């Protein structure tokens, strides 16, 4: 099992102002982490540290026990995939087919194997009908799926995604998150999603870290996080409606605390049925 470890990591763009302060975090390849925080809380900086683009100023970042300073970005890219917020920046070929094959070609994989893998990946991410299209002609949702597909094809141990649901409608958001969950559970790829959108977190992620002022205000199980009301109150972070309703029902009628709509409906049916 692979592991990413941040040990007392700090980072600053200029000496006086630390953007990331003494963060310690262990991420396993079986986890689906959501790193949540408001604008300016240091989420993207943390993502860039996790992907090796930035090196910590203080502390250590270990990838399977190896210090990030001793690993080149290209080497790190074989273990960690990064989907940037603006996925357009990640495309540099003229078709979806070529885009997915790019990483494999550079690893000198056999042509027949590349063709087979690309076909599989296109099917997996429902992008077959766009295989000849230019990546920049795809819709926002399809582009994001393609960006993830380009990473998944390389079979990394982790994929870090910066705001993957930003700009997506409800349907595409659901589609994208379903893919991520599938990748996490079937392919055993650790997923780390950087987001400010809490709506989907409770239904998809298994672990949560809440970033505030460059530090971690909470890290651990999702259920416990949502039960600790004070954290969210202090951060002035509005919780999803479903969590608010569920919490009120849990508090007033001692109903089990539910994290998603389906389980809440099920619980209500059970109680009302009585």
């Amino acid at each position, binding site marked *: 099992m692979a592991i990413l470890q941040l040990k007392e990591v700090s980072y600053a763009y200029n000496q006086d102002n630390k953007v990331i302060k003494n963060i310690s975090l262990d991420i396993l390849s079986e986890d689906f982490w959501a790193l949540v925080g408001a604008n300016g809380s240091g989420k993207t900086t943390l993502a860039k540290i996790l*992907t090796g*683009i930035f090196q910590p100023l203080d502390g250590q970042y270990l990838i399977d026990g190896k210090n990030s300073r001793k690993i*080149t*970005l*290209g*080497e*790190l*890219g*074989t273990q*960690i*995939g*990064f989907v*940037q917020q603006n996925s*357009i*920046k*990640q*495309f*540099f*070929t*003229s078709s979806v087919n070529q885009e997915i094959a*790019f*990483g494999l070609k*550079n*690893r000198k994989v056999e042509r027949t194997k590349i063709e087979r893998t690309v076909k599989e990946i296109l099917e997996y991410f429902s992008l077959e009908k766009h295989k000849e299209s230019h990546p*920049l002609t795809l819709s926002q949702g399809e582009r994001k799926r393609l960006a993830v597909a*380009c*990473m998944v094809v*390389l079979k*990394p141990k982790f994929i870090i995604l910066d705001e993957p649901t930003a700009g997506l409608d409800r349907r595409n958001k659901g589609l994208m998150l379903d893919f991520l969950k599938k990748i996490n559970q079937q392919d055993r790829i650790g997923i780390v999603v950087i987001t400010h959108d809490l709506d989907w977190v409770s239904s998809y992620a298994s672990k949560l870290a809440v970033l505030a002022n460059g530090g971690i205000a909470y890290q651990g199980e999702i259920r416990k996080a949502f039960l600790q009301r004070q954290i969210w109150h202090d951060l002035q972070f509005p919780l999803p409606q479903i969590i608010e309703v569920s919490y009120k029902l849990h508090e007033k009628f001692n109903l089990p605390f539910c994290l998603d709509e389906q389980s809440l409906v099920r619980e209500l049916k059970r109680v009302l049925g009585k």
Partner: protein
Amino acid sequence: MNDLDPRTKLTIILSLSSLTIIFDKFFLLCGLLLISILLTWITIGSYIAIVRILEKMWPLFLSLAITLTIFASFSEALTSILRIIIIAISALILTTTSPRDFIQALLSWRIPYEIAFMVMVATRFLFIFREEAKDTFLAVQMRGVEINKLKYKEKIELYISLLLPLVFSAISKAYKLAIAMEARGLRAYPQRSFFRQLRLKKIDYCLMASTILATVIVIFINI
């Protein structure tokens, strides 16, 4: 020197660049290089920028030296490199001028506003282009490609494959910028007025006159 009028700075740069392009005498070019280093150092107030630009350009110098020595002669390679260095170093003087003042300077020389603005945007665009290139190379590395470990042939193939999307992205950015400028009324009226006005001081007149005089003298002596 930093407070000089942008027109004075432009005159100095134009004179140095013109002399550099007109003549290919080694000792003259060395003299021009010395003057450009001195002037840039005094204007910027530090030699670090000069060292940095030379550091960044050395792969270009090396490739020029090899190519020109093979296909022309060593002296041609040397003069070409000297010319590039002089123009690059003297152009650094402009980094001490704000883009607004730069436009004003060009306008006062009767250059149409659209063209002056285009020149300013183009200089800024170079930095954007550099950032784009950085992002692209980063994205390539994040796909597990170790650029440093690639063979020269593979590296060239990779760079060629990245060039097209880079140019495409730059053109698409330029197109979007043009729309944004039109939307903010860039050419709403044929004549523009400016609150900010440039005023030439005595030192500017003296420096401009002496630069032009020196340039003319050098041309006459060396022709």
